[in-house]
Every structure is written in structure tokens, then in C-alpha cells.
């Protein structure tokens, strides 16, 4: 019994002390260092207009549907690109619902971008991402959308391609992960022309 109470005191006191250190001191230090050294990143890598209006985050995708914009991946976050409700579709490989959705998206993608019915469609263009907030599309996806955007804006395709490569995040050190085109940055660059 004496041991029990001794251990109970240890349990209660250690909970309080460790909580103070690990959940008070530690996150505050990280907060301080983060805000001093990496202010932009620590606050969400926000993109703001000259007047200070927040237009989004460099790291988070947004929905686009007009022809003059590059289209991001389908999103299962809330009603689409809800950055307070991240989610994938969680539909499995034999899901009828996923099958129907991909079928419709492929038809729409081919129509928008003038592809033949025999042309394969980039997988990322017709599948929902893990977070529903994927800021990127694949290089091939961007390449296939370039003529449509160029026509809608009356620009040369070469000009659009140049912006694509400017908005491409390369693989880390050339080997880690995959290169992707940041759709929001690309569309803002197009609007800024």
C-alpha cells in the first residue's frame, strides 16, 4: 500500500511536470524560433496581394474550373479544397463510386483539352489526392492543359510553358520525391501577366 501511494505521487507529479516541459516550454520555444527564423513558413506560406489580402497558401491547392486557369486535381476535402477539412476519398479499388467518378472525369478532361478517346489521361488529373489539398499536378498534366489555357487567354503556348516551368517545384536534391507544377502559383502568374 505504501508503494502504491508512492507510485501514485510519482504518477501525478510526473504528469504535471512532463506536461509543463513537453507541452508548454517545448512548443513555445519552437514557436519563438519558428516565428523569428522562418516567419513566412511558420504562418502558413501565405500568398498576399499588395494590399494585404490573403489569396491562399503556396502549399495548399485551390479549386479552378474556368478554361483560362490550369485545373488542379479532384479534391475530396469538404466541398473541394476545404483547407479546414482535409481528406482523401478513401474509395477502394473495386468501388463503383470511384469508377463512375473517374469515368466522368476522364470524359471531361478529354473534352476540355481536345484529347482523342484513345488518348490516355494522366492519373493525377482524374484521381483525388490524399489530403484533398494537393497543390501540385504532374508535368504531363500541365503540358496537356497548356494549349487550352493559351487559347483561352490568347497567349502563345510557349509563353504558358515558360510559366509552367517557373511554377514547377523540382524533386528534392534532384532525387527525392517527384517534381510537380504548383497550380495556384501558376494561375496567379498567368493573371499577373
Amino acid at each position, binding site marked *: 500500500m505504501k508503494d502504491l501511494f508512492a507510485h501514485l505521487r510519482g504518477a501525478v507529479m510526473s504528469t504535471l511536470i512532463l506536461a509543463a516541459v513537453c507541452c508548454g516550454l517545448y512548443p513555445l520555444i519552437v514557436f519563438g524560433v519558428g516565428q523569428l527564423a522562418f516567419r513566412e513558413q511558420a504562418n502558413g506560406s501565405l500568398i498576399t496581394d499588395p494590399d494585404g489580402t490573403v489569396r491562399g497558401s503556396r502549399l495548399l491547392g485551390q479549386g479552378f474550373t474556368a478554361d483560362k486557369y490550369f485545373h488542379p486535381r479532384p479534391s475530396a476535402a469538404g466541398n473541394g479544397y476545404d483547407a479546414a477539412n482535409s481528406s482523401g476519398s478513401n474509395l477502394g*479499388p473495386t468501388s463503383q463510386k470511384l469508377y463512375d467518378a473517374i469515368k466522368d472525369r476522364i470524359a471531361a478532361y478529354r473534352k476540355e483539352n481536345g484529347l482523342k478517346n484513345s488518348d490516355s489521361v494522366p492519373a493525377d488529373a482524374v484521381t483525388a489526392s490524399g489530403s484533398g489539398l494537393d497543390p501540385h499536378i504532374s508535368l504531363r498534366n500541365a503540358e496537356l492543359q497548356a494549349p487550352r489555357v493559351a487559347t483561352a487567354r490568347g497567349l502563345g503556348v510557349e509563353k504558358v510553358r515558360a510559366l509552367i516551368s517557373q511554377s514547377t517545384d523540382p524533386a528534392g536534391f534532384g532525387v527525392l*520525391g517527384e517534381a510537380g507544377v504548383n497550380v495556384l502559383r501558376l494561375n496567379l502568374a498567368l493573371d499577373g501577366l
Partner: protein
Amino acid sequence: MQTSGWLQLGLFVVALAVITKPMGLYLLRVLDANGRTWLDPVLRPLERLTYRLMGVDSSKEHDWKQYTLAMLLFSLVGCVFTYAILRLQHLLPLNPQGFGALSPDLAFNTATSFTTNTNWQSYVGEAVMSYLSQMVGLAYHNFVSAATGIAISAALVRGIARNGVRPSSGAAVSEVPGLGKVSGGSLVSSVAAPGDGRTPVMTLGNFWVDLVRVTYYLLLPICLVFSVVLVSQGMIQNFKPYTKAKLVEPYKISVEKKNDKGETTLGADGKPVLEEQTVTEQTIAQGPMASQVAIKILGTNGGGYANANAAHPFENPTPLSNFLQMLSIFAIGSGLTYYLGRMTKNQAHGWSVWGAMMVLFLGGTLLCWWAEAKGNPIHHRLGVAVADGNMEGKEVRFGIFNSALFATVTTDASCGAVNSMHDSFTPLGGFVPLFNIQLGEIIIGGVGAGLYGILVFVVLAVFIAGLMVGRTPEYLGKKIQSYEVKMAMLSLLILAVSILGFAAWASVSPWGLAGLNNAGPHGLSEMLYAYSSGTGNNGSAFAGLTANTPWYNTTLGLGMLIGRFLMIVPILAMAGSLAQKKIAPPSAGTFPVAGGTFVVLLLGTVLLVGALNFLPALTLGPVVEYFLTAQGRLF
């Protein structure tokens, strides 16, 4: 399976091998009550103060019962602490979004989930949890449940390594190679009477000392550095309310029309009336994420700050952050195998255990990668590019390879963070994480949990080898007798019974079927994965399952408690029994626990036990689904 994938895999394995030894040597110092580290000038005073406030004598060691009691009481207090925070969230500070209290079943599920190092999440983090709940209620357990796991593995290793003869003098001084003389403290408990001298009560260390030292010297310093690196990559760390961004292109959505009272308006056909709304803003969730993610990963907890976990661009912004996260998941567990080698003065044994783990790791990674790169034939027939693989639920910046690797790593360890949605994997791609969990997460494994998990299999393997050659089985000079084998089997059977029992119950119950997001064999996989993940203390999910219901929350909570504590107690009992045994010098008949034969035997034991327990259920889930996918069958 592209070249860049092979390069990254090579890079990952090499990086892991390189950090294993330094991590092991550092662990050796941290897990020695008198070990010296270069952080002593800062942390020693804090450590001493902590002991004083706790009323703990750090020079006294515990026998296995004392050690277990301390661990259980500590876990209980922590669980109640978090339950209270979650239930009182609406009254507590740091809640700029004004989130309400959690329901009792959700708070129970979440508190047990984080206490047991599972981090199963029935909730959507950014839509339910206040900053205080995340930072204190949840991140607290990310630290201490990891420290608890490491402490227990150290206790077991001490039980194996210590020679069960009462030393003549009080203090034993042992030579630790590379470190010089390290005082090991008294081996005999001065709390409990050592008995009549013939049966000394052998001790396993002091739980409080292990807990505090692992937290202060190991977890906190690494996390401080790691979280700042993560912030530099784009991870958020702030206390701002959620940001409203003005969308570049507003869009229209159809939503159910609500009347003034917030009720859905029904049309003449009984269906909700839809109306168009224009969305002009994107609400961007904020919060103190980086400090929590660092320990979530390093401590193999895995509970995402955001719902999408490490797939969320804030929570895993770049391929570099992704690589570092995967490496951190394995870092401590890998170092613990080196610690095992050093402590048992048989480094080849430590590396052999590591080698067996690597074989299983590479097997799982290659199968998962191959299946995901091959993609889904059903979608290929619709016109999806074959070369792109299965991208449903995956992020472009990680691609196929890093998604498959992360899925394997997170389930090899008992982490459960995900950077892609396992529910949307191809049948064989999803089979890998599921089977990894069912093997008991012993492939590197959760911090500490992986080591004590694999040592159970080592004991069994040695026992089987002993039976085959007709000798009394010995492990590192200690006789493995019926008590040890019973305890080892108990901890394994509890796992299987909880997983299969609960999954079977759910699959024939209305409450179980109501939560499914997918029908057919995939639905069974969702339930099987949930209880495997809960009992295995992993925390990842086939996340389509709607588990935030009283039935699921409660049964999963029980599964987590069973998988954690009913596994730990027999293991500590085994450690206590081993600690008392005298180490016999090796003889010609001793079965070597290093080298190829041992690795093959260990692998055979792991795979055989896993297959016998779970293949029937897996056949009805992922395996049958694989053949149905080839046929093009939909549900």
C-alpha cells in the same frame, strides 16, 4: 518501378544503417541512470528537480512488479488527464475556433488511443481539436507513451542481460565498450527485501528514471531540432485563428437548403432541396503543428495534427520533410537493436535482429511499391495512363514510390502516420500495411514496442530450435523454460484474439456494417484494418470507415488497451523471470543467436505465426479483392 525509386530506397537504407550505431550508443547512456551525456549541464538540474518533486529516489531500482505498477499508474493518470482536457475543451484557453467538448465515447477513444501510443483518430483534427487539446492533451502522450515504450524495452533487455546472481557488494560496475566504466547501480532492489539470499529479487531498472531520462535526454532535444527543420520546410507553428483566403476563382456548390432553424428543407419527393452557393473564401487551418509533428513521428505515435495526417501539405510540405519523417520513424527503434547488442555483449546478435527486420522491411516495400506502380486495371480500362500507377489518395510531390515506402515504414513501426490514403491502395498494396501490423509491428517497430515485440519472437524461435535439436533452449546463456514460453505465447495470442474477435463481431453487427465506406471484400478489409490498427497500437486506418460512433469508439478503445497493456504485462513478467536466471557460459551445444541460421529461423517464426493467425481473414479481404480487380468486378 523507376530508377529514382531504387535510388531513394538505397538512400533510405544507407541513412538508416548509418544512424543506428550512434543512436544505439546514445541510448546506452540515456538508459543508464548514471550515464553521461553532453546535455548534462542543462538537463541534470532539471532531472534532479523532477525527481525531487516526484518524491523518487533515483538510485533505487524496481523489480518487475514494481516496474509494472508504476507504468500502469502513470498511464492511468495520463489517460484521465487527457480525457478531462478533451471533455472540458470548450472551457479551456487556446481555442480560437470555439470548438465544443468531445462526446464521452470519442474522448474515451482518443484518450486511450494516445495513452497507448496508438493515435487512432475517430475525429477530424482541424475541425474538432482546440490548440490546447492538440498541444497538451495529445502531444503530451506523444512524448510519454514513446518514453514508456522505450523504458519497457530497456527493462526487458536488462532482464536478459543481467546475470541473476546476487552480487557480493551493493554496486555493480560494468565495463561498457567504448564508454569506459559505467556504474550500473544496484542490481538488487533496496525497496523490496531481497529475500532469504537464495532467491534474490532481481530488478529491471527504475521506471521513473527511465521515463524522465528518455523524455529529457532523448526525445526533447531531437524534437527541438527536428521541429525547427520541419518549420523551415513549410510546416506551421503559430497560435493564430484560422486564416480566411480570398479565392482566386470563386466557385459554386450545391448544398442542402436549410430553414431558419438550421433544419434541412425537404421537397415534395422527400429528398432535401438543393440550392447553389458561391464559395469565395478558403479557410486555412492554423496552429502549433510542427512541435507536435516532430514527436508524433519520432515517437512512432502517428496521430495527425490534421485529418489527412502527413499527406496534408502543411504536415509534410516537401519531399525532404517526407524523407526525414520516414527516417525518424525508424531512428530510435533501429538504434534499440544496437542497444540490445551492446547490453548483451553480443553485437552480432543486435545486427542479426536488425538484419531480419530489414529483410521483412524490403519485402514489404517492394511488394507494396510494385502493386501501386502497376496500378488498377479497372481504371486503366477507362483510360487512366498505365505508367502513372495508382494515384487515388496519393500526393503528386511524393508520387508512387514515396507513398508505398511511407505506408510500409509507418506500419513496420507502430507509427500510423500516413502520407497517402491506405484505403485507396490496390488490393496487394493495401495488404502490405495490414499484414505488417498483424505481424505485431516488429519490423523495427514502434519505439521500444518493436524491440520487446521482436524479442518475444526471438524467445519463441530459440525455443523451437531447442525442441528441434532436443536440448533445453537457451537464450544468451539463460534457460528458456515453460514460464517464459507461456508469457511469450500469451502476448502473441492476445493480439490475435483481440483483432480477429472484434473484427468478426463488427462484421456481423449492424453497427459494424453501418460504418463502412466500401462494400464487398474491401469493406471487410476496412474493419479488419481498424481492429488490427487499434490492437496493434498503430493508428493508421483504411480511413473510409466511419468510426466515430459509440460502438466503434468503445470497441476500438478496448482493443487498444488490450493490445498495449495485456501485451506489456506478460513481457515484463518474462523480463522479471529472466532477470533471476544465471547466465551459463556458451558451450558446443549452444544455439547461436547471430548469423544466417538464426535470421532464417527468426523470419520463419515471425511469418509462420503471422500467417497461421491471419491468412484466413486476409484471404477474404485483400486476396479475394485482388482477383476480383483482375476480373473488373465492382461493388
